[in-house]
C-alpha cells in the first residue's frame, strides 16, 4: 500500500544513512528523501488542509523548512516522526492563522460528556462505510478533530507527540481523539442522508 506515512521503498537503515548524508550536505541524498516523502507528506497536508492548492503549497513549504532545519534533527529519533512534527506544526499554524478553527476549547473537551454509543448501531455504520465516504466526512470535521485523527491514524504519532503538536495536555489526547471519532460518526450519519454533492462540498476538490 502507498502511504501510511512511511517512506515509499526505503528501509529503516537505508533511511538513516540517507538522512545522515543529507545532513552532511549531500544534495543527491536530499533528493532521495524528497522522492521518498513527497507523496506521504502531500497526502498528510491534503488530509489536514481544506483545499488541494493549500496542500500543495504547504507540502512545498514544509520541504523548504525541513531542508533548513535538517541540521537540528536529532538522529536518535525516528526521521518520520520528526518530519510529521514539522509538517503538523506548519499546517496547524496555517489553520490557526486563518482563524477558521471552530473547535472546542480544551476545557470544554474535558467537561463535555460524550454519548455512549450503541455498539450494534456503530458496528453497522462502520460496516457500511467506504474509505472515500470517510474521507468526505473527515473534511467536514472541525480542524482540531481532523488534525487529531490524521496525526494519530495517518502519521502514527504517539499521544505525547499529538499533545505537543496541538498544544494539549497529554491527558486530553484520548478525549480529543474520542471526540473526533464522535464528530466523524455524526458527519457520517449526516452524510448518508445528505445529497452526495453537498457532502463532498469541501473535501471533493
Amino acid at each position, binding site marked *: 500500500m502507498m502511504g501510511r506515512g512511511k517512506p515509499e521503498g526505503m528501509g529503516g537503515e537505508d533511511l538513516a544513512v540517507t538522512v545522515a548524508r543529507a545532513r552532511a550536505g549531500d544534495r543527491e541524498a536530499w533528493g532521495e528523501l524528497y*522522492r521518498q516523502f513527497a507523496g506521504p507528506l502531500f497526502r498528510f497536508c491534503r488530509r489536514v488542509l481544506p483545499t488541494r492548492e493549500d496542500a500543495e503549497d504547504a507540502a512545498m513549504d514544509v520541504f523548504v523548512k525541513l531542508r533548513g532545519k535538517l541540521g537540528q534533527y536529532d538522529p536518535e529519533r525516528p526521521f518520520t516522526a520528526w518530519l510529521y512534527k514539522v509538517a503538523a506544526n506548519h499546517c496547524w499554524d496555517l489553520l490557526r492563522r486563518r482563524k477558521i478553527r471552530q473547535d472546542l476549547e480544551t476545557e470544554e473537551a474535558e467537561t463535555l460528556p460524550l454519548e455512549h454509543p450503541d455498539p450494534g448501531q456503530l458496528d453497522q455504520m462502520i460496516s457500511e462505510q467506504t474509505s472515500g465516504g470517510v474521507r468526505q466526512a473527515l473534511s467536514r470535521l472541525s480542524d482540531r478533530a481532523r488534525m487529531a485523527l490524521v496525526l494519530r491514524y495517518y502519521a502514527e504519532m504517539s499521544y505525547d507527540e499529538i499533545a505537543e503538536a496541538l498544544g494539549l495536555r497529554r491527558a486530553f489526547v484520548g478525549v480529543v481523539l474520542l471526540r473526533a471519532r464522535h464528530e466523524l460518526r455524526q458527519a457520517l450519519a449526516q452524510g448518508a442522508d445528505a445529497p452526495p454533492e453537498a457532502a463532498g462540498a469541501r473535501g471533493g476538490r
Partner: protein
Amino acid sequence: MNATTPVIPSNHVDEVTGLLYIEGQLEPASARGVVAHLERCPACRRLLDTLKRESLLLREALTEADEPLPARLLAPRLAEGVSWAWLTALGLAAAGLYAFWNIYVGPWMETLDQSGFGGQFIFTWLLFNGASWKGWNDMLQWVIVGSLVILATVLLFLFRRNLRRLTSISVFLAVALLLSLGFAPPAQATEFVKTRSTYEVPAGQTVRNDLFIFGNSAHIDGTLDGDLFFFGHSLTVDGQVTGDVFAFADSVRIKGKVGGNVRTFNQSISIEGDVARSVMSFVNHFELPAGATVGGSATLFVEDMQIEGRLGRDLCAFAGEGKLDGRVGGEVRLYQDRHARGVISVGSRADVAGDFHYRGPTAPDVSSNAKLASAPHVEIVHEVPDYLRSYSYWYNAMIWGMAFVIGLLFISVAPGFVQQASREVSRIGAPLGLGLVAFLGLPIAAVVACVTVVGLGVGISAFFLWVFLLCFAQVFTAVWLGETLMGTTSEAWPMTGRLALGLLVLRLGALIPVIGFWVRFIACVLGMGALVLLIFRRVQRPIVPSPMAAAPAAPAA
C-alpha cells in the same frame, strides 16, 4: 456535537477507557482491570472490537493514495535545469544590454558630454524623462506596459507564496495600473531632434507639435505650438512657445513668450520676456529683470536670485542669497539655508501684495521704501545640533511611526518573509556586502533601464523601489535587532514588539551626532542586502536537486 447526559453503564468499560486500552495507553493496573472485565462482558468486548474496526477504517481511509501527486511536487524546480535557463536568460539580457548601450546610450552620452553635462546630471535626466512621460508616443507606451507586465509577473512569481492572501489585490492593482497606462490619453504628435550643433526655429516659422531637442543649443525665434523639452547646453527663446518649457541646460534665456509653465534644472536662467503661468527652477542663478513678467507663481531652489520684474502670484524660494526688488502679486515665502553666508535683501522697488515670511539664519535687509502688505514675519534659525532641537524629536518620532506602520504591514501580510529577512540580516557580512551592491547598483540599473528607452517603465519602477527601500529596508534590520535583544519569534505579535523596539534603538542611534548617519546607512544597507539575499535564494535554491521521475534510489553509500 452531542452534549447529552452520559449513558455509560456504571459497571462497564467507558468509551474513553476502551479507546485508551486498545491504543495501549492505559496504566498496567487499569489495563488489567479492563481485561478482567472483558472476559465476562460480551457487550464491552463488542464495543472494543467496534472501536478497533473504526481505527482500521480510519487508517485505510487516511492512508489510501486516492489522488495523484501534483505536478508541482512531482517535478519541482531543478537546480540543473534552472542554471542553464538562467544562464541563457542572463546571456540574452547581457547581449540586449550591450546592443542597447551601443545603439542608444553611447551616442547620447557623447551628446551629453559635448553639451557640457557630466555623469552627475543623469539623475536630473531621469526625472526629466518622468516629467515628459505624456509626450511619448503610443508605441513606446505599449512597450512600457509590456515591461511593467513583465516586472509585475516576476515579482508576483517570486513572492507568490508570501502574497497568497494579497494575490487578488495585487493582481487587481496591477491590472488597474496597466489599464490606466494603456488607456492614457493618446500622445500628441512629437518630434525628436538630435543635433550636435544648434537647432533653430527661425523667426516667422511655426512648429506645430511637441519638440524634444537634444543638442548643443537651441534658438526658438519663431513659434512652437506645443511643449518644448530641451536637453543641452543653452536654450534661448526669442519667439513664442505656446505650451510648457522643460529645460535641462547650462543656461536658459527666455526673451520671448511662454504660454505655459517653465520648469528647469540648470545653471542659470534669465526670464526677460513673459511666462504666462508658473516657473519652477532648480538653479544656481535666477534672474527676472525689470520689465519681465511671470503670470503665475515662482518656486525656486536657488543659490542666488535677482527679482526685479513682476510675479502674478506667490514667490516661494529656498535661496542662498539674493534681492527682491519687483512686484509680487501674492505672498512671499523665503527660506534661507542654515549655512548660508549671504544676505537676502528686499529693495525699495519691492511691492508685495500678500504676507512676507522669512526663515533663515540672518534677518533680511528690508528697505524702508519697500511696499509690504503687512509687517514681515521673520524667523531667525540658528544652527543648532539636531539633538538640541525639539522638532528633530518630533521628526524622529514621525519617521519611527512611518517605519513601524510599514513594518506592521509587512508582518501582517507576510510574517514568514519578515522572519526570513531578519535571519538574513543576522548574517551581517553577506547582507552588508550585497546591500552595498544594491544600494549603488539599483539606481545605476534604473538609469541604464531608462536610458535604453525600452526599459523606461522598469527603470522608473526600479528607481521608486530603490527610494522605498532607502526609507524602509531598515524595518528588517529593526526586526533582527529586536530579536537579538528579546529573542527570536515566529509569531506576528511578538514580532511586532521586536520591530517596535528595534526601530526605537535605530532611531535613538540616528540621533547621535556623526555616528547617527552611519547607523541609518548601515541599517538601510543591511535591510536591502537581506532582501536581495532572500530574493536570490528564492530564485536559486531548488527544493530538490533532481526530478521525482529520476531513476530509483541508488543504494546509500
